[in-house]
């Protein structure tokens, strides 16, 4: 069990470092990094604080601690993926509307230019 929790600690630290490096290099925006950082920090704390993990396990009524940890982590990541799906959907809608507007404005611009050329 300890080995499993140690692996979780390692993974949490790797995730934390990866997210921080990505934010520093501007690969990920700060507002989208917060949920990853919180999830990694929560996994790190739970994998190290055995008493806290046991309390959570008793609260949920699961047979062992690693299962509790992985269920919690799985739940958190599912919620995060769902949240990102919503964000991506909004971005796609905005992107389509923007592309259509650009195309229509370019069309009007071309028409204006050709009218100007004809008048000249």
């Amino acid at each position: 069990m300890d080995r499993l929790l140690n692996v979780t600690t390692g993974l949490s630290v790797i995730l934390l470092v990866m997210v921080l490096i990505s934010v520093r290099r501007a690969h990920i925006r700060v507002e989208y990094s917060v949920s990853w950082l919180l999830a990694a920090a929560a996994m790190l704390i739970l994998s190290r604080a055995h008493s806290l993990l046991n309390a959570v396990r008793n609260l949920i009524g699961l047979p062992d601690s690693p299962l509790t940890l992985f269920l919690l982590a799985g739940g958190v990541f599912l919620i995060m993926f769902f949240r990102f799906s919503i964000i991506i959907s909004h971005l796609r809608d905005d992107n389509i509307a923007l592309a259509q507007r650009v195309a229509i404005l370019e069309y009007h611009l071309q028409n204006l230019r050709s009218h100007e050329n004809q008048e000249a």
Partner: protein
Amino acid sequence: MTFPSSPDSLLVIVPALNEEAAIGGVVAEIRQHVPGVPVLVIDDCSSDTTIAVARQAGAQVLPLPHHLGLGGCVQAGYKLAYELGFQYVIRVDGDGQHDARDIPRVFEKLKTTGCEMVIGSRFVADNGSRTGAVRSLGIRFFRLVLRPVLGKTVHDPTSGFVGVNRRALNVFRQSFPLEYPEIEALVVLQRRRFRFEEVPCKMRPRTTGRSTITALKSLYYVVHVLLGVFVNVLKFDRRLRRAQRERGAGG
């Protein structure tokens, strides 16, 4: 293309993606059968010479900056048509499968009935149009599903040969399904109590290019469209109930 002055102004829009082999013929045929009517090809970021061929054939072209898919492409045309003040828009596919000789019939139906949408249908009368077995099965399935939703039978719910008036244009420029839009668009209109009619049209077999709906995509198509229909029904029913509640509270 200038702002139309006629109260019956019509624009024919042709969404196209990599249709260089067919688009010239499609535009020429439209101009032959509905002379004087502007043709707008909406290019969904083709990698071939679709734009040049369409312009050469006498069409106006609206090139999209990147690939948006069929729904985004058609909606861009609807938005431009609405901005320019057109009263009617007829959509014809860019692959040459729709017969431009049917455009006047669709236009006439739009004008005389006052309905918001007219569908060029392959199956409303036996006109010799043939379709593949799988597609035919899909059409029958959606006919059954849509019957209770629309309150009447739509013989060819997947037809891309569609005419709309300005009221429908106003709805579609704001909200239009992005993928496989034909069936969902019908539900969107019906939920607003708009009417649609069908006129018999011929559909020719595709001579160039490939259909975007492959065998593998068919299952995804069915699930996607069913979900779209379901969501639209729920969305509009909720709005209707809310409006009724507000009317009840106000009165």
